[in-house]
């Protein structure tokens, strides 16, 4: 049984995927994960998850062009220039 190992460097930091191990149950998985990822105090916590229990999402369709949700969905350069020019013209006129 394959277990995915996630480790945390310090309290408050995100858990990061560190590797995987082969163990018949959680007790064995814990013993080996402690040896591999914690024996020098390099992790404050570990998450061990059976690989089969991880629901993977990896496809990101964008059929509806949802770029208004992202910063690359906005191009303000030309309009900002125009607005500044108008303001400048109004100020001097």
């Amino acid at each position, binding site marked *: 049984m*394959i277990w995915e190992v996630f480790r945390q460097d310090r309290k408050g930091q995100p858990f990061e*995927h*560190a*590797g*995987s*191990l*082969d*163990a*018949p*149950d959680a007790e*064995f998985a814990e013993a080996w994960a402690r*040896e*591999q*990822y914690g024996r020098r105090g*390099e992790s404050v916590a570990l998450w061990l998850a059976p690989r089969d229990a991880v629901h*993977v999402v*990896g*496809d*990101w369709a*964008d059929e509806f062009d949802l770029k208004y949700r*992202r910063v690359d969905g906005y191009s303000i350069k030309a309009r900002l220039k125009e607005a500044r020019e108008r303001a400048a013209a109004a100020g001097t006129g």
Partner: protein
Amino acid sequence: MAAVEISRDEQAFLEYVQGGGQVETSDWLPADYRAKLVKFIEMHGNSELMGVLPEREWILRAPTLQRKLALTAKVQDEVGHAQLIYRVVEDLGKSREQCLADLVSGKSKFHNVFHYPTRTWGDVGVIAWLVDAAAIISQKALLKCSYAPYARIMKKICWEESFHILHGRDVILAMVTGTPAQFELVQEALNRWWGPLMQFHGNPIPAEDDPMFLWRIKSQGNEEARQQFLDGYVPQILELGLTVPDPQLRKRDDGVWEYTEPDWAELKSVVTGHGPCTAQRLAFRAHFIDQEQWVRDAVLAA
């Protein structure tokens, strides 16, 4: 952000990895890429596993309790690396049992430096310092490997290797500041190991002709790695009053190191199973795989 779509096309895949892209186990991988990954990563795992044997021979003979404990810890680290690495190979489709079977039958290879004897405590110091230094240069370049699961475990491996180099330097410093006889043990060990160390990074084929570089399994060429080793460690060797046993060795004005051509015939002969300790060490490994079968049986039956 949209995830990068990797086309089921070898050329597109090649361009993707050459542009610095990384892939996961679940992505489509070209057959040749997968085969090269297995070969490369398996040899790395083999080397970690075989690499503990030259040092293991000195655990019982280590000069102090502190050294005995440090050496034992190092052996545990390296075996741990082998476990992590074989796990990556398993996800690529080759079982650990098969890796071990191919190792002991001589079908797969391990690094040249682990085929040589460890004659004195001086050799233990030179291995821990300079062999590990040469290895860490290769391993640091693997942090950028196009195969992400391998690159990720390399973080932990490199981190532990940095302890090993420090341990090696400490052993060497204790000896070079000791009696003239102790200093001489270090110099003699350096003389024995210099040839294998210069062969370690492989023949200087251009990176573009190296299939491992082409697929960005490695991120640098062999000669680049050797130059980096010389640049980093020759000054450290010389400052201790030791002599590098190569009269041709010099750094040119343009920063490139010149050296006597390493013995490539020796390298080839050693890694194909004809090194001075190859047979003995493989027999030892085979014996232990056999003897420890009951542990695997007991765990799997749990």
